[in-house]
């Protein structure tokens, strides 16, 4: 199902969570709503789900105006960051909840629940209670529960946010596979740019209640619309008046057109790559990332004078307002 949010605005007291946001999400895609904490991405997801009402603007699902339709009639599946498991029901009853509410017959319910528990690798734990499961298992149960009603739209609010790194990576890979299998339109919220880059077909980058950029991960990485997008999606360093990726800087022995003279301050071997910090004439420090072989070949040592140049054809944006530099993803 496709989603169109048109001119959505949402205010919580004095805080503007969303300011005139318009987003289109294609059917069948896996889309990430990415951005720093408090940027409005969860609010947008909850408005799409019908768990929150926009102050103004409309939400269309498959071209149909759903703004005033309650959450339970939107045909969505929703997964919460903290699982929202029903603690007084077994895993099996949790997953069966939606089917029972819909008064599905017993045979269908049983078949579907068993099938889903198989899919999320919880078949052996169906008689347990949520309190007897690990975080990762609870979240898989929550996913199965959301999928039981065969939603047209699967919405996940920071689904892996409360899990440790290893489990998170496992579940990521697994969510990608699941998305292909169930063939629903999937939207997930994350503040982790790596997670978004790895999983999503399309990223909607949201900051301070507004959309910064929408597009496939490579497009956002290679052609960031704003300095904010560039610094949010990866490491950046300032070279003169430009914001550049540390691996997009050439280290030259002689001056050439557009190069900056710099003195090497530090050389760090970091396994497969090396990091070089150099000071420009204006006193600012530039970080350069090189392959280890390349660094050894250049024979760089502290105190050397070199010339730094941005590699032709690489991504660059004008230096951002200082806010961009601080907007390091917190995940």
């Amino acid at each position: 199902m496709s989603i169109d949010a048109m001119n959505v605005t949402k205010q919580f007291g004095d805080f503007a969570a969303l300011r005139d946001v318009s987003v289109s999400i294609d059917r069948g895609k896996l889309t990430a709503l990415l951005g720093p904490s408090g940027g409005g991405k969860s609010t947008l997801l909850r408005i799409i789900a019908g768990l929150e009402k926009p102050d103004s603007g409309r939400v269309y699902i498959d071209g149909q105006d759903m703004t005033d339709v309650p959450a339970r009639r939107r045909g969505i599946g929703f997964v919460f960051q903290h699982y929202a498991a029903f603690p007084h029901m077994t895993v099996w009853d949790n997953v069966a909840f939606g089917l029972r509410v819909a008064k599905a017959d017993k045979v269908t319910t049983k078949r579907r629940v068993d099938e889903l528990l198989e899919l999320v690798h919880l078949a052996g734990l169906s008689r347990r209670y949520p309190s007897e499961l690990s975080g990762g298992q609870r979240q898989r149960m929550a996913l199965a529960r959301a999928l039981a009603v065969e939603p047209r739209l699967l919405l996940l609010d920071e689904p892996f946010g409360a899990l440790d790194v290893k489990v998170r990576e496992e579940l990521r890979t697994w969510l990608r596979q699941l998305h292909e299998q169930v063939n629903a339109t999937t939207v997930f919220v994350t503040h982790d740019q790596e997670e978004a880059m790895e999983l999503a077909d399309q990223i909607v980058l949201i900051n301070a209640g507004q959309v910064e950029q929408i597009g496939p991960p490579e497009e956002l990485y290679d052609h960031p619309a704003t300095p904010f997008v560039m610094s949010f999606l990866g490491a950046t360093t300032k070279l003169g008046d430009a914001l550049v990726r540390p691996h997009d800087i050439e280290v030259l022995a002689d001056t050439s057109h557009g190069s900056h003279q710099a003195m090497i301050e530090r050389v760090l071997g970091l396994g497969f790559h090396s990091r070089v910090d150099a000071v420009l004439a204006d006193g600012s420090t530039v970080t350069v990332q090189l392959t280890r072989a390349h660094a050894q070949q250049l024979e760089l040592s502290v105190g050397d004078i070199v010339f730094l140049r941005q590699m032709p054809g690489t991504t660059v944006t004008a230096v951002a307002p200082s806010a961009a530099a601080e907007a390091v993803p917190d995940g």
Partner: protein
Amino acid sequence: MASRLLLRFGALGYLVVLLLAPVVMITYRTFEHGVAPVVSALSSPTAHHAIYLSILVTLIAVPLNVAFGLVAGVAIARRRMPAGRAVNLLVNLPFAMSPVVIGLALYTLYGRGGWLGDWLSAHGIQVLFSLPALVLATTFVSLPFVVREVVPVLEEIGTDQEQAAATLGAGSMTTFWRITLPALRWALAYGVVLTAARALGEFGAVSIVSGNIVGQTQTLPLLVEERFRNFDAVGAYSAGFALALISLFIVAAMTVLSRRKEH
């Protein structure tokens, strides 16, 4: 180490002197001359009626306060409206007022010349000195317990589970019965125990609005007091013991019931 021991035994000793000693003493006095006087003191029609009436009033007041407590609890914890805040404040009123004053207040409202009393007696309804007055007074004084138990639990569990149920297609009634209510069962059980104990033991408000008519509006605490005044010590102790026994039974029953529904 020594200070911790001192603290522990100090607290224990304080509780023993303050709470346990009087209870042990009255139990001892009750059975000082054996079981026979107790049985006979509790066998009179007056005693039977007082026990019956106390249980009856409690059985009416508890469901009323459970129903009200659930509705008010949800209103306070889930709806961000000014009415919720007003309810939250009003609910504490019975805690803040002396039961005797509550009794007087009901007396003036429902008695002759009261706003409701005259209108009701014109329609042939007698409130004071009859069962309705007992129920009103008892419900009033025991009103806050269920609400006060339910609200913190509702606030703690938050709205995630209820919203999850909504996204799975459940309407608000289904969500209430199958998600919210089960989450509240411990709070409710505890609220019921407190309400019932308070309702059974209520004296001050009831003594004013009941008229203390023997065999008609005399509850168990009223009987205890009357016997005590008439120097019938064993009779008073026995009635008091019966009161404690009923309370204990309620606590035990609720514990067993909520344990059975564990998970």
